[in-house]
Every structure is written in C-alpha cells, then in structure tokens.
C-alpha cells in the first residue's frame, strides 16, 4: 500500500472543441499528500476525474504502479482509487452508516450483504473522520462540516491506496477546514497517496507534502511548497500579490492585493 504511485502520462482532454488539458504529465509520489492548486478553469477537476477514471481522456493514460488504470475492471479500479467529487450530494435522506457502506461496494458489500470486516471498515472510517456519534443519524440532518466528514468517511471506507478529493474544504468553516486537512495528512502518513484540489494556498502550504500547480490546462510546476509558491509565480498564475515568510509553522502566505 505504501508504495502505490500514480502517473498521468501525456493526458490531454478536449471538451466541446475546447482543450481543457494539454499533454499533462505528472507523477505522484507514494504516501504523500499532494495539493493541486490553480485558478478557476485551470483543469484541476477534469484532471481529478481522469485520475479517478470517471472521465476518459482524449489522449494519454493514467498509470498506477506503471500499469494502465484503464486495463482494470471497474471493480478492481474502484478498490484501488477512492474519489470524492466536488459536488457532494446525498439526494435521499439515508442513515450515515448505510451511506458510508457504499464505500464497500467495490468489495462486493452492500448493507444487506456485508461481512464483519466490511462493517469494521465502515466504523473505522467513521472513527477516523470523528463522526462515529453520527452513525445512526440521517445525512439530511447534518451540518455542512459533519456531512463533509461523513462523505470523506465513505471514501475512506473503501480502504483504497489512492484517495482523490476535489475541494474537500470548500464551504467549511476554519475549524473544520483544519480538521479536514489533518485527516488527509493522517491518511497520507498512513501510506495512502492523497491528492486534494485546494483553493486555500496557505493550508496547501501548511499541510501538503507536494504541490502541483496547474494553469490553463498545463502543469506550471510541481514540488514542495517553497519551490512552488513563489511571489512571482502567484502573480503570474493567480494575479495576486503576496508576501511570503518562512516561520516555525512553515511557509506563511499573506495576500496584499491584486497584480494590476
């Protein structure tokens, strides 16, 4: 599990005549929390969907441990890659524990037919995201922060070696944002390859082992936070003026304005 790598090999995507991704070539190191940053429309979500094999690229492929992910059956792939999309919805008011059991579906488990091991994985996931107390509540009654953690638990319950989360902390308050980042960091430290799309550059700098920056469908740079987040690059890509300081907590980012 600790050695799983993911590699987007020359991935391009055309959607309705518009090129969303231009020959993106990215390797993701094992057991790391990777933050994917970039302005709106940079192609982050599309790349995540391709990595999750929810979307088929126009050209190029995704390799896991050097083998094409597309060669796996849907179930095999689902056991290897857990994916939490950007729009987090649960249309029907279902009990939390049963919803999280959906994460065991790639292992052939359903609420009706689940082994002790499956229920253990579900309860473990609920514990890790600190929502064990909500197990028997209905998803529709939960707050945004609780719901976000329950849905992360659903992804964790799969116990896949790769976890892809698209904007996991959007719409969360600062407390829950921090909590969520800590959870993702713990998953990475436990050996999972975690890729998270983030808009909060400060949290990305604070928590991520590696940062990959996309702009207009191309990779701008990939590396650690000090390498990737420079004032010049943030001005070029995001159009923001920032001051950067290295202190005992890591890289500190203060936005001072917009680049004219």
């Amino acid at each position: 599990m600790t050695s799983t790598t993911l590699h987007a090999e020359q991935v391009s995507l055309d959607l309705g005549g518009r090129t969303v991704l231009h020959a993106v070539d990215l390797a993701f190191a094992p057991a790391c929390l990777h933050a994917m940053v970039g302005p709106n429309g940079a192609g982050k979500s599309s790349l995540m969907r391709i990595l999750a094999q929810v979307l088929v690229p126009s050209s190029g492929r995704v390799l896991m441990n050097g083998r094409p992910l597309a060669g796996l059956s849907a179930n095999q792939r689902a056991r290897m890659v857990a994916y939490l999309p950007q729009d987090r919805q649960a249309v029907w008011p279902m009990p939390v524990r049963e919803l999280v059991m959906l994460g065991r579906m790639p292992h052939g488990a359903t609420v009706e037919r689940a082994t002790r091991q499956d229920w253990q994985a579900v309860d473990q996931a609920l514990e890790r995201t600190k929502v064990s107390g909500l197990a028997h509540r209905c998803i529709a009654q939960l707050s945004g922060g609780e719901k976000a953690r329950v849905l992360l638990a659903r992804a964790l319950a799969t116990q896949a070696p790769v976890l892809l989360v698209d904007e996991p902390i959007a719409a969360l308050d600062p407390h829950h944002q921090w909590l969520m980042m800590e959870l993702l960091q713990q998953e990475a430290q436990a050996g999972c390859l975690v890729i998270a799309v983030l808009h909060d550059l400060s949290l990305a700098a604070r928590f991520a082992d590696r940062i990959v920056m996309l702009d207009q469908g191309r990779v701008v740079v990939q590396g650690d936070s000090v390498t990737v987040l420079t004032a010049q690059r943030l001005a070029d890509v995001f159009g923001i003026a920032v001051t950067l300081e290295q202190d005992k907590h890591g890289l500190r980012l203060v936005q001072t304005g917009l680049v004219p």
Partner: protein
Amino acid sequence: MVTGQPRADQARLSPHRRLAGLYAVLVVMLCASLLTGAVPLSLAQSLAGLWSGDDLAATIMREIRLPRTLLALFVGGILGISGAALQGLMRNPLADPTVFGAPQSAAFGAVLVLYSGMAGALSVVLPLAAIGVALLSFGVLMRIVGREASVVALILAGLAIGTLAGAATSIVIALSPNPFAVTEIVFWMMGSFEDRSLLHVGLSVPFILAAMGLLLSQGNGYRALVLGEDSATSLGINVSRLRWMTLASVAMGVGAAVAVSGAIGFVGLIAPHCARLLVGADPKRILWPSLLSGSLLMLMADVLVRLVPAQTELRVGAVTALLGVPLFVAAIRRHRGLFAEGAA
C-alpha cells in the same frame, strides 16, 4: 458498536413489520377484487367458481374477475417499481413514467397498430408496438434534455412528449372508420381493466415480469447514485448502462401494461412515496415495497370503480389520477428546493 442494519427513522414499528402489514392488506384487496362485481356472488360460490365448475359463477370468476384482478396486480406492480427505479435513476422524487410521457406514447403505439390493421387486439404485436413507441419516447426525451438534465427540463420535455402522444392517439382514432372510436379514445387515454380476458394477461405479464426482474436487479446502482454520477462511477457502477437498462426495462414493462390496460397515470409516482413511508428512503430498499404498493393502489382503485354506482363504469385511470395529482402537487411543494437549484 453493534453490527447490523441501523435505521435513521426512529419508528415504533420495524420496517419488516410494516412490510408484513403491506402484504396483509394486499391479500385482503386481492380477495376484495375477486369478490366485487356486478353480479352478487357469495364467498363460497366465488371460491368454488375459481377452481372448478362451468356454471355462471365459474365463468364470471375465471373469465372476468380473475383476469381483471391479475392485470391490476401486475400493471400496478410494474408502474410502482418503474416509478421507484426512475426516481432512483434520476435522483428525483418527482420522476414517474407518466411524467416522462411513456404510457401516453405506449398507448399511441398500440392504437397505431390496431387502427392500421397490422394486428388484432389479441396479438403479441400490440404489446411489442407499445413497448417500441415507449422506448422511442424515452430516446427522444433523453435527446432533448441531454445527460445532465435538470428537473425542469425533464418535466417540460416529458410534458411535451406526453401531450404529443395523447394528441396523436386521438387523431389516429378520429381518422379511423370505426364509429365506436370515441369509446376507444377514452379507453386508451384513461385506462381500464374492464372486460379483460386471461389472453390479455398472457400477452402482457411475461414482459411485465421480465421488466420487474431487470429493475429489481439494478438496486445497487440506484443506491450508489445517491452520491451522484461521478461517485457512482468511481464505485464501479456503469452509469450509462444503468440508465439504458432502466429506461429499456421501464419501456418494456409499462409498454406491455399499457397495451392491455390503457394509460394509467400517477401510480408510479405515489407508490414509491408510500414505500418510503414504510422502509425509508434507500433507493434500493424501496424497489420491492414500491411494486407491492403499486399493486395495492391499483387493486384499490379498480375495486372502487366497481363499487361506485355509475351509468358507465368509472375509469380506473381517472381514479388514480384523482389520487395522484394532489400527491404530485404536494411532492412538488415539498421538494421546491429541487426547482430552485435547477439541477437534478
């Protein structure tokens, strides 16, 4: 923590007990349907007539009431489970074959075959034509609204297709040389179980059973769709296959049902809501109870039309619409948020 099946709803009765209650009421309604009719027969006469003899009672039971009861049972069941499957697929509590124009289209298909003289009323071509046109209507619907359909777009497109099919049906009938065409219009547009034979049962039930089986087998897909299409895909569900299977099965079941009973509306909308009251919102778990609820609703409506003293018998489709429309409106009011957001 205990393992097992937790419930979100803190109800006094377990879902199993409530389901058992549903079975009990269904059996009572089956008996009521067999015992209700224009000719008063005693319980003993009815039961005896069902199994043996060739007197009047036997004829009434086996050639009038039994086919009628069986058809109501199966047609109600397929409409109920179709509604539940479509609601699961569309992730939308307002989905129903009628809302998408499928029964109206199937009725048009059946009428077209009858009046073009291609086949008689007791030919297998009739259900096949109804199924074909229902399938076509789904195809057109999906072409109009596209994959990422909003609720509003789906309902508007369904309305357009249903209205068009209804209009086309009345035109075909009006152009036919048959002077009794007007009654036929009412039959196809309103639906009825009057004067059906066991031949009608044999013509439709195989298709209906196949469709029921296919829909029941898709439960995991509907459950995974709770989290949206991308999540379901990432969990190993082939969403486009699920969509295709569901629409084809609904077209097959509803098409066959409409071919023998006419277009009966809103059972597919009400039944899943009844099922949710019994077993919760899980889109897989409501499939079977929706089937049972649909059967029950249809039997109740069909017994009701026989009990109401009227010059000509009430149409069962009118009764289900009468029950269904207020519920439809209530559902729209309750889920107003869906319309505000726009996306399904």
